[in-house]
């Protein structure tokens, strides 16, 4: 018995043309060759979120970003005019990594007026221009204008900094499309209290991403999200709304806020801190007009989870906070997960404790996902089952994601028929 009405076609999956209902292959998560193809076809062509404008608050603020999947390191900086720019983090003299601190492979951040190479003291200004060459007279016909830092396309949408490694990518707004850009008016800039997590996970990046774009597994793997009293009453999972737009996708959920649930459906610590899984109960006033967050206009809206191709997720809660996830491949069967939770700045100890409870519970259940998915990777790598994984209607986004990845790889391979591996 469905909780929510399905589209006229009978299912969400059939509602979207071209998605199909056949079985899925997970070869794309275990094949080293496919991973090499993804590196070129996706990560060197798609817009990738590398940070927020709050990461570069002032002129000269910079951070570096290791992008293993593209075999490079970037430096992202706010220049004198306030523009955010990105460069390959490489000195033009002998190829040394330009900005790093103590450990060359660790990311770093800071503030400066010029980038100075540790090795031979070459200097670049905040627009990447080479401004000083140690003993310039010893070089041969060196025109400093030819040796600026190699720029990377960099654009900002709603305070999110994106880079693109392609030569001439489409504009960021065009890439993001209407469904995502409609979120642009959401007050992300008011939610600056931030908790960052990172983990190196031994599974393909898409497997972890899949776990956060379907909730079919929640009542099972995360049965403890419900209290013992509530557990027998928990139905399976159904979403009231799905949407797709280009390679991007979203799902919304609805239901009464956790604060209105019977007290034996809440954990004691949730009652004590007035907070929990779905966030602090004291909702901040973010204004009435929150464009784009509930595109389905569903009643009792609870949260919307936007999956921005390829590796970014923004999950907005009705209770006035949001999560940002990014999945950075490091090999065909490993990736680095970055999760950040954003709240309005806490003004009191109660605010802070409420955030703490939400953040701690997030980690508890994310650990379950992380623990299990390493097993998934191993199971898939056995290839005991090959191309025969059935997906249900609540896994529409998983289906669409793998389709999108395949279609980007296909497009690229058609345009570069010789070889996609390096």
């Amino acid at each position, binding site marked *: 018995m469905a909780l929510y009405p399905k589209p006229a076609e009978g299912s969400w999956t059939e509602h979207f043309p071209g998605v199909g209902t056949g079985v899925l292959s997970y070869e794309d998560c275990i094949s080293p060759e496919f991973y090499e193809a993804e590196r070129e076809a996706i990560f060197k062509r798609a817009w990738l979120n590398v940070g927020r404008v709050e990461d570069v608050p002032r002129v000269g603020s910079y951070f570096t970003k290791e992008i293993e999947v*593209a*075999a*490079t*390191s970037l430096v992202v900086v706010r220049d004198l005019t306030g523009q955010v720019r990105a460069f*390959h*983090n*490489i*000195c*033009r*003299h*002998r*190829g*040394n*990594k*330009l900005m*790093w601190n103590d450990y*060359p*492979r660790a990311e770093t951040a800071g503030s400066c007026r010029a980038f100075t*190479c*540790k*090795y*031979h*003291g070459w200097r670049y200004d905040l627009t990447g221009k080479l401004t000083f060459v*140690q*003993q310039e*007279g*010893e*070089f*041969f*016909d*060196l025109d400093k204008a030819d*040796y600026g830092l*190699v720029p990377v396309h960099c654009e900002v949408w709603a305070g999110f900094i994106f880079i693109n490694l392609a030569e001439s990518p489409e504009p960021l707004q065009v890439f993001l499309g209407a469904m995502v850009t409609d979120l642009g008016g959401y007050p992300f800039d008011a939610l600056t209290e931030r908790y960052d997590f990172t983990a190196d996970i031994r599974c393909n990046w898409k497997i972890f991403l899949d776990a956060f774009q379907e909730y079919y597994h929640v009542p099972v793997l995360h049965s403890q999200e419900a209290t013992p009293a509530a557990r027998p009453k928990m139905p399976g999972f159904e979403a009231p709304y799905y949407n797709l737009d280009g390679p991007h996708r979203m799902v919304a959920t609805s239901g009464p806020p956790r604060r209105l649930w019977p007290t034996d459906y809440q954990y004691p610590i949730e009652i004590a801190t007035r907070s929990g899984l779905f966030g602090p109960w004291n909702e901040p006033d973010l204004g009435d007009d929150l464009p784009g967050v509930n595109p389905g206009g569903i009643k009792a809206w609870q949260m919307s989870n936007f999956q921005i191709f390829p590796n970014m997720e923004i999950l907005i809660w009705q209770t006035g906070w949001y999560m940002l996830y990014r999945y950075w491949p490091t090999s065909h069967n490993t990736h680095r997960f970055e999760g950040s939770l954003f709240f309005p700045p806490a003004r009191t100890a109660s605010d802070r404790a409420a955030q703490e409870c939400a953040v701690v519970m997030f980690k508890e259940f994310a650990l379950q996902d992380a623990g299990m998915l390493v097993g998934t990777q191993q199971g898939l790598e056995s290839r005991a089952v090959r191309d025969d994984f059935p997906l249900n209607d609540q896994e529409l986004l998983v289906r669409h994601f793998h389709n999108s990845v395949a279609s980007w790889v296909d497009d690229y391979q058609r345009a570069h028929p010789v070889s996609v591996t390096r």
Partner: protein
Amino acid sequence: MPHFAKPPAGSWTQHYPELGTAPVDYTDSVDPAFYELEKVAIFRRSWLNVGRVEKLPRTGSYFTRELAVLDTSLIIVKGADGKIRAFHNVCRHRGNKLVWNDFPGEESAGVCRQFTCKYHAWRYDLTGKLTFIQQEGEFFGVDKDQYGLKEVACDVWEGFIFINLEPAESLTEYLGDLAKGIEGYPFHEMTSVYTYRAEVGSNWKLFIDAFAEFYHAPVLHHKQAVKNEAEKLVGYGFEALHYELSSPHSMVSSWGGMAPPKDPSMVKPIERALRSGLFGPWDRPAIEGLDPLPPSINPSRSPSWGTDSFEFFPNFTLLFWAPGWYLTYNYWPTAVDRHLFEANLYFVPARSARERLAQELATVTFKEYALQDGNTLEATQSMLASRVVSEFPLNDQEILLRHLHKVVADRVKEYTDAAAR
């Protein structure tokens, strides 16, 4: 405005016109296919330094070398005739590694009268001859003379042991005039050795690059000098006294006025107290052979001479310091982006606690510098591997790098051209 005279061609680089002055392509340091070619075109057919004679003091003294770049392990041994020989470290019976201790992948050393295989006890004498087969009667017409150890060309120059898998010329021909002019240096007096090893995450050539130019020194190492000195050094930058190419080998000769320094306040307290520092103990040891020096050392006969660095192709650096000690570097590739770095610092044996502590300070200081160099290399390798940029401008003080990368490219091309014919 140069502080030291340059050749009439205008620069050291232009003095050797075959080098050109264009930017240099560093794909040779990140391309796995090129690395495979280097192994066969260069390392298999060059004379490679594997140690010094002091490591083989007696008849039967031996050491093994694990040389991934040659895909082999070698035994170097001193025979009863005093001759040093090298053999592939493989038993002729079933290919077991002949000499090893505990861990087959680790190098070992010792003294023996013969080599006995751990597997089936076949025995070989110090000249590699097979002398004993366990249950010889069980074999079928095995002639022991046909089953000696596989020998590798091995020769000694000034106490340095070299090997070559496919020699086309003798060691002295290979080392050429540059080496000829070093002969007579009192290496045999400098037998107190400090050995360092590190596995470095970069192509082997990048570490040679770092040690073959001093353009980086005032910048990368500026924190090592006291503040006034550091500012002075960055202001001057670096200029060598002299460069010399004797392809495939090369050398750079540099000033170095800090041993002892003109102004003691320019050095650190511990250096003043121990009369020593990066350039070594300030007081020369009392041995023969340092004055005058052999002609290749300090070729410009500059009174402000401090150090000479000889790059013997492909992977052996011999570095002399004015105060009377020397060091060697060997760079052993293990992959396109990894190598094993070895440094040996050689001093005349200390006769007193004062001399020992002066050496201690020199060696500790060496390590402080080398750690900075080594760490930078991993950063360089990771960014070269991005291939965002592949051509880099090298200046006149980087002439030895330009030369090294050119010789490597030439040798690889020679090899591939010959293979194509």
